[in-house]
């Protein structure tokens, strides 16, 4: 009873109080980062429809407020608007911290994506969602070729690896949603396991200047980020469906995200692709179909002060590899090179037969961040990746449906970083990355392991600082140290071990002698230093410059050390080399941006000197019961790569525009004064664009792509004795294919279906003239032409 009275009294008091409308609500608005007062911030009292602004000291005050709950909205130019509930009880003071930072101004919302550059003093390019969606049916490597200086190295048309300024595979780091992709990326026929449709924006940083991601990215870093989450109550998504005649297939992608104003969000995305045999201008490419299924889920809480994110992604790619590219010996290769078209051409089919790959990649990630007032942001992330790679060869008997390669790569990693950004002109970032990786090569394949079982340990620490001297000049410095240990268990054929004279230098590695095979336990440690320095400055309103320097070191990958086996598509025996050391790159680059009225040009030049550059090259032929094979071995040399990438835009008028992207690169083997292998040839793309907003937002582009012949190549041709005919035959594996010119057309219109829903209809035609051509950087160029004309219709629904 006593309590009952007390409660009643309290309620009455509350009632009495609420009628008190003489309270004063006052407070101060500060910058979250450095605590400085924010002047002229707007304070809006939502229930009362009253406004006030902060004074020169960041203070505000409103009189005659009734006690009770009040909803206020605090906003300021360049700040994230904040909505707060305040309980007014007598005169009430409130301190409000707003995110007000010059750097955050980069987060301009573009089509629901927070796309901004990650660096200020690097050669960085950005692909926004629209440029990515256009390539929805293709792969990451295809989409990135829109950037001048980025090309690709292909195995057919479905296995596409990005090449940045002439470097690829282990020399490029791919970050997807904050996770460094670990998917046996050393192999040329191992495309990155990325579902392009899961990305909202892609940043490409040329060179090793983004040290937070790794110290070994001497080619560059590719950063894929999901679409940003907006902080309001909303349910949105998009669906892209495309169909095309070449490959007679479709691609479908759909995503849905639910966000809450309080900061919670949950989203999911699914994509599916299915293609049959592709075709050149003259014939079917038998066994080149593709089946892909991907989905990802994303959930978390996001506020300026703190947040977390949990993420899961699954991607399975089943890719058929041109039947004619699987050959038995060097005579078959000679026959294939001399034949005008592939030796196996059958009718169209959706079947995915051997040779084929079946790769599944899964990522689990949990990330947490918190901002401390007047200090900065702390990030902690754990991720786990599981990569399961099956490769099926053309086999006989009971092994017909058994994989020839069965690798399971598991990677655990932790990334932590602290970013001190409380001062608006200097930022510091410190971080530690640690990773453990295990590779398991399943012996049930009945084929000797191409890559051995191994454990790999990585530890990296870095420190990066950014200095903003004034409106015009930015400086960046970075330093990183990495420790790598690889601990492998590898079987060598005794005959190979002796032929390589490993018994003299590595005899202590042998842990078991099985007669014809030796089990060895190589354990190698690497200590790598990397550094980066850059400056960007504006000389006037039209001209700006960037200069930077990057030092990076890369430990040899498992393939370069241990690879051991016959590659059927190249008819060659490829060998790793235990004697290989790390490679060191020193890269300098300069950028000039000029912008005046309708004209803009971006010139990027670089010079990359790589000591102990690892490359694979022939050392002779060996006879086997199958016939003769050339033997290629991993070796080291000193190399230099240099080139210029140009992007120019000219807006002729409201409707018409012209755009040019060109890249020129040379690769030299300095030690032996000859060209480097697999360097992209000169390429120039000219684009004439026409857009008219009145015609349902009509956009169109006619593209001309000219690729010249690579005349600078090492001559790895060799002669082989064919006992059958008692003749020496020249095997021309080096000569690049001739220059080619392709025309492409793209167009789209957008129809608004309601105020939140629109439909975009696109028509893309590639290789309009159905030109037959072969590309130097396609490993299947010995066997078949590249793709003929393709008509693609794409429907994109945003809701």
């Amino acid at each position, binding site marked *: 009873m006593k309590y009952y009275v007390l409660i009643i009294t309290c309620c009455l008091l509350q009632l009495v109080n609420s009628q008190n409308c003489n309270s004063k609500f006052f407070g101060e608005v500060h910058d979250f980062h450095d605590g400085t007062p924010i002047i002229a911030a707007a304070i809006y009292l939502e229930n009362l429809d009253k406004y006030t602004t902060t004074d020169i000291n960041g203070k505000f005050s409103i009189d005659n407020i009734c006690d009770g709950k009040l909803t206020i909205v605090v906003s300021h130019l360049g700040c994230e608007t904040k909505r707060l509930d305040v309980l007014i009880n007598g005169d009430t003071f409130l301190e409000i911290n707003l995110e007000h930072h010059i750097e955050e101004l980069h987060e301009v919302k573009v089509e629901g994506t927070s796309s901004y550059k990650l660096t200020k003093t690097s050669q960085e390019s950005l692909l926004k969602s629209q440029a990515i969606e256009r390539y929805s049916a293709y792969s990451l490597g295809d989409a990135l070729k829109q950037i001048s200086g980025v090309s690709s190295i292909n195995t057919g048309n479905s296995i596409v690896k990005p090449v940045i300024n002439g470097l690829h595979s282990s020399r490029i780091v791919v970050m997807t949603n904050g996770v460094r992709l670990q998917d046996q990326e050393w192999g040329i026929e191992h495309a990155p396991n990325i579902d392009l449709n899961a990305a909202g924006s892609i940043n490409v940083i040329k060179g090793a200047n983004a040290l937070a991601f790794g110290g070994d990215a001497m080619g560059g870093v590719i950063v894929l980020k999901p679409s940003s989450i907006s902080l309001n109550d909303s349910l949105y998504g998009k669906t892209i469906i495309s169909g095309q005649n070449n490959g007679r297939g479709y691609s479908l992608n759909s995503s849905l995200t639910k966000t809450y104003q309080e900061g919670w969000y949950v989203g999911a995305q699914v994509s599916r692709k299915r293609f049959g045999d592709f075709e050149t201008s003259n014939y079917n490419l038998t066994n080149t179909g593709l089946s892909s299924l991907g989905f990802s889920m994303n959930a978390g809480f996001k506020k300026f002060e703190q947040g977390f994110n949990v993420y899961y992604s699954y991607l399975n790619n089943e890719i058929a590899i041109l039947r004619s590219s699987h050959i038995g010996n060097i005579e078959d290769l000679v026959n294939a090179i001399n034949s005008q078209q592939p030796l196996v051409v059958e009718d169209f089919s959706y079947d995915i037969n051997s040779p084929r790959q079946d790769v599944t990649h899964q990522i689990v990630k949990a990330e947490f961040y918190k901002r401390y007032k007047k200090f900065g942001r702390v990030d902690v992330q754990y991720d786990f990746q599981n990569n399961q790679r099956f490769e099926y060869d053309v086999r006989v008997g009971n092994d017909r449906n058994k994989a020839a390669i069965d690798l399971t790569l598991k990677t655990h990693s932790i990334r932590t970083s602290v970013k001190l950004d409380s001062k608006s002109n200097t930022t510091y970032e410190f971080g530690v990355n640690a990773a453990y990786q295990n590779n398991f090569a399943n012996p049930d394949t009945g084929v000797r392991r191409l890559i051995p079982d191994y454990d790999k340990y990585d530890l990296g620490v870095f420190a990066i600082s950014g200095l903003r001297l004034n409106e015009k000049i930015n400086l960046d410095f970075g330093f990183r140290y990495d420790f790598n240990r690889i601990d492998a268990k590898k079987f060598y054929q005794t005959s190979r071990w002796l032929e390589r004279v490993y018994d003299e230098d590595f005899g202590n590695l042998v842990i078991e002698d099985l007669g014809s095979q030796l089990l060895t336990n190589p354990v190698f440690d690497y200590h790598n230093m990397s550094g980066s320095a850059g400056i960007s400055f504006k000389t006037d309103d039209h001209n700006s410059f960037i200069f930077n320097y990057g030092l990076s070191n890369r430990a040899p990958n498992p393939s370069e050390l241990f690879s051991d086996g016959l590659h059927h598509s190249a008819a060659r025996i490829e060998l790793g080399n235990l004697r290989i050391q790390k490679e060191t790159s020193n890269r300098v680059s300069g950028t000039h941006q000029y912008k005046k009225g309708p004209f803009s040009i971006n010139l990027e030049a670089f010079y990359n000197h790589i000591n102990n550059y690892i490359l694979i090259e022939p050392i002779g032929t060996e006879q086997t019961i*199958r016939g003769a094979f050339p033997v290629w071995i991993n070796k080291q040399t000193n190399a230099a790569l240099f080139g210029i990438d140009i992007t120019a835009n000219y807006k002729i008028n409201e409707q018409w525009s012209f755009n040019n992207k060109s890249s020129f690169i040379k690769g030299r083997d300095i030690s032996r004064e000859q060209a480097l292998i697999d360097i992209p040839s000169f390429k120039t793309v000219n684009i004439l664009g026409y857009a008219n907003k009145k015609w349902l937002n009509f956009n169109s582009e006619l593209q001309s792509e000219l690729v010249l012949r690579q005349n600078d190549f090492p001559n790895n041709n060799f002669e082989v004795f064919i006992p059958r005919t008692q003749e020496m035959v020249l095997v021309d594996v080096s000569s690049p294919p001739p220059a080619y010119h392709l025309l492409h057309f793209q167009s789209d219109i957008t129809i608004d279906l309601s105020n939140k829903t629109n439909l975009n209809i696109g028509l893309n035609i590639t290789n309009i003239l159905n030109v037959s051509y072969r590309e130097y950087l396609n490993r299947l160029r010995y066997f078949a032409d590249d793709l003929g004309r393709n008509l693609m219709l794409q429907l994109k629904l945003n809701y």
Partner: protein
Amino acid sequence: MKTIKKLSILFLSTLVFLGCSNDDIPIPVNEEEVITTLTAVLTPVGGGTAVTLQTRDLDGDGPNAPTITVSGPLAVNTVYNGNLTLLNETESPAELKNTEIEEESNEHQFFFEVTNNIGSFAYRDTDGNGNPLGLEFTFTTTANTGSGNMTITLRHEPNKTAAGVAEGDITNAGGETDIEGTFSVTVQ
């Protein structure tokens, strides 16, 4: 200060990862599909000394070249019945690979060639479709004496209907080479 303490704990926790280790000993792989040895026995139809040709490569794709042996000379104007034996000798006991080829006869074909016009070949067996296979064949020597190179090739998935393939001409056969052995033989 409290913040820094928290951070140092975070950094230290990342080091824990380096403690893991895996001491599993992997098991060796004995190549299942490898054909190490091809033996051709040529037996004269009317009686006489049989001739054995063999190519043997025990380390497969390894650096050692195959060992090629020919037991002796052939006689002029003689019909020889040839029989092929294929073995995987990396396994113990050696595995006979003929069975696999007989089971998949439609996808395999042997080709025989000889230089210097010292003889001619004919198939004695057929696959499931009535096309030649070549595990059994005849070799008929001519009246010419001298030496020549005899090449025996096994192609996997050849185009058996291409021109000349059924007659044993390898030119248009395509497919991939599983075995290729060349033997220097003499006829006297």
